């Protein structure tokens, strides 16, 4: 489903300092319905890997194939279309739009003319147990509730791949567990691929694979 082959990424630095290599010749294949955890210390490239896999950033070398198309070669508009239609993103912060209600926030990724959007949003809110908060604004919610709303937004277009970058880092244990359970439930229900980057290995229990990145560039991939 989603396949990264020999991708390399290095960040340029100012002046004459040499670039910092984050990934070098990294390969990863994620199948449909697979749950993959990405872990490693800070600076090891977890977020960068998720950005690459999600088409938010282009590698300097290698290819990332999704649905038979190399994301590296697509235009920004084409990439945006793929992200919106097939990918769902959850970040450490919720990034809900503060002038929209929860329900409206969830519907933000919907396409114009999508008559089912409101119905789907309502079901998602029920699924995530925040249906009663649909008309509230983000500032009226707790941290856990906001993150659930952010998860609902990520799932709005029934993505085939869900990429979550430290989705529980700002939550307490109970909320973190709940959010991960919801992501897992969606993944199982829809047969989507779930890729989660986190420091917390306990959140990755039950995952099909865990990829551990090291700042040195070493990669461990274990089932």
């Amino acid at each position, binding site marked *: 489903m989603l396949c990264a082959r020999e991708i390399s990424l290095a960040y340029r630095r100012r002046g004459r300092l040499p670039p910092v290599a984050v990934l070098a010749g990294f390969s990863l294949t994620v199948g449909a319905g697979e749950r993959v955890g990405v872990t*490693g210390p800070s600076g090891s490239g977890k977020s960068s890997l998720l950005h690459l896999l999600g088409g938010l950033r282009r590698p300097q070398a290698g290819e990332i194939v999704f649905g038979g198309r190399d994301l590296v070669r697509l235009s920004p508009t084409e*990439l*945006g*279309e793929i992200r919106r239609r097939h990918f769902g993103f959850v970040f450490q912060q919720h*990034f809900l*739009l503060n002038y929209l209600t929860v329900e409206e926030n969830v*519907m933000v*990724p919907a396409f114009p003319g999508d008559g089912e959007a409101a119905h789907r949003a309502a079901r998602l809110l029920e699924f995530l147990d925040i249906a009663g908060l649909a008309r509230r604004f983000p500032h009226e919610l707790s941290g856990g509730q906001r993150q659930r709303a952010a998860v609902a937004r990520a799932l709005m277009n029934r993505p085939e791949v869900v990429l979550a*970058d430290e989705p529980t880092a700002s939550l307490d244990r109970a909320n973190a567990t709940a959010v991960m359970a919801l992501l897992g439930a969606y993944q199982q229900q829809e047969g989507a691929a779930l890729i989660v980057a986190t420091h917390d290995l306990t959140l990755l229990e039950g995952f099909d694979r865990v990829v551990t990145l090291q700042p040195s560039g070493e990669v461990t991939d274990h089932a």
Partner: protein
Amino acid sequence: MPDLTVLYCRRRWPRLALMALVVAVGVTGTLLLNSIFASFGQTRDLIFSSRTGYLVELTYPRGAADPGSVAELVGPKTRVIAGRAFNLSYPLFGTAVAGMVAYALPAADIECLLDHLGLTVDGRGDLLLPSSQALALGMGVGDTLVENRFQAGAYRVGGVITGRPWVALLPIELAPAQSPEVVLVLAPPGKAAELESLLRSAGLPGQPYIWGPAASWVATRRDYAEYLAISLALGLLVAGAVTLAASLLRQADYRARRDEMTILAVIGYPRRWLIRRAGLELALEMVGGWPAGAALGAALVGRLNDLLYRPRGMVVAADPGVIGPTLLIPGVLIVVSLLAVTAVVRRDALEGLKPAGLGRGG
């Protein structure tokens, strides 16, 4: 998909703050443009000949001319009664000269002039141009009937002025850069031929007309400097106060807006859509704020005129003239803002996610 542009109006304060900023820009722009255009005014000299009793006004291209040497052209006993002056009217749309004439001679002086000509206010119908014709000539500067008539005369619209000598503005087609562009001669009735001869002998071709007692007041460099200083002070005061208040609100909103752009781009909204939306919102704010700012600026100029300049027989910077040029301001602002938005969308949203707090996980 919710209509984000419409729904963003729920956040009234940031939006109103930006509009207030635009208003301030409009005010400042109007005042400053007023000053700038005023500074484009031509250099004039009013020369009074004690021998002939003529008052001669010479208008030069900007930065040219030596009034002393020109004074010699008129006659040895000619003296410069006001020194070099600066025209405070607009050199736009052909109204500059007419405006200048009207401004140089306050309405009271024009009345006096007309009295000398044996014309009463009621008896001046034959001097009056139809308003449509005056407007076609760009004569919208003066705000009194007398001034309008005077401007009409200044343009010497042929037979419309019933053959009575009135005001002549003589385009002097002299090659040297030091030559005056126009010469306005105010001559006593019956003396036109004599003055014409005098000017011709001095090498200034043309047809002088009209008697004039003397201009009672002439704008000077100091007046211009004063006006500029007041405009700047007012503009900066308004802009500073509003900017201070509005920027506090905008500052609070900036990060939210940047994050919004980022998350929308991440979700997959096309860049063009984001930029178009930002442009539309900016344009709406400009449409709301700029006219108010320009109107406020124009009102301030008018108030300045009323308080300071009209009592001294001068009108600074006709209000309508500055509206057109200030139209450029919102256009420039929109373009600059869009460039900034484009840069932010490109840099922050897709390539540099960290500024928005995404991807800090390592």
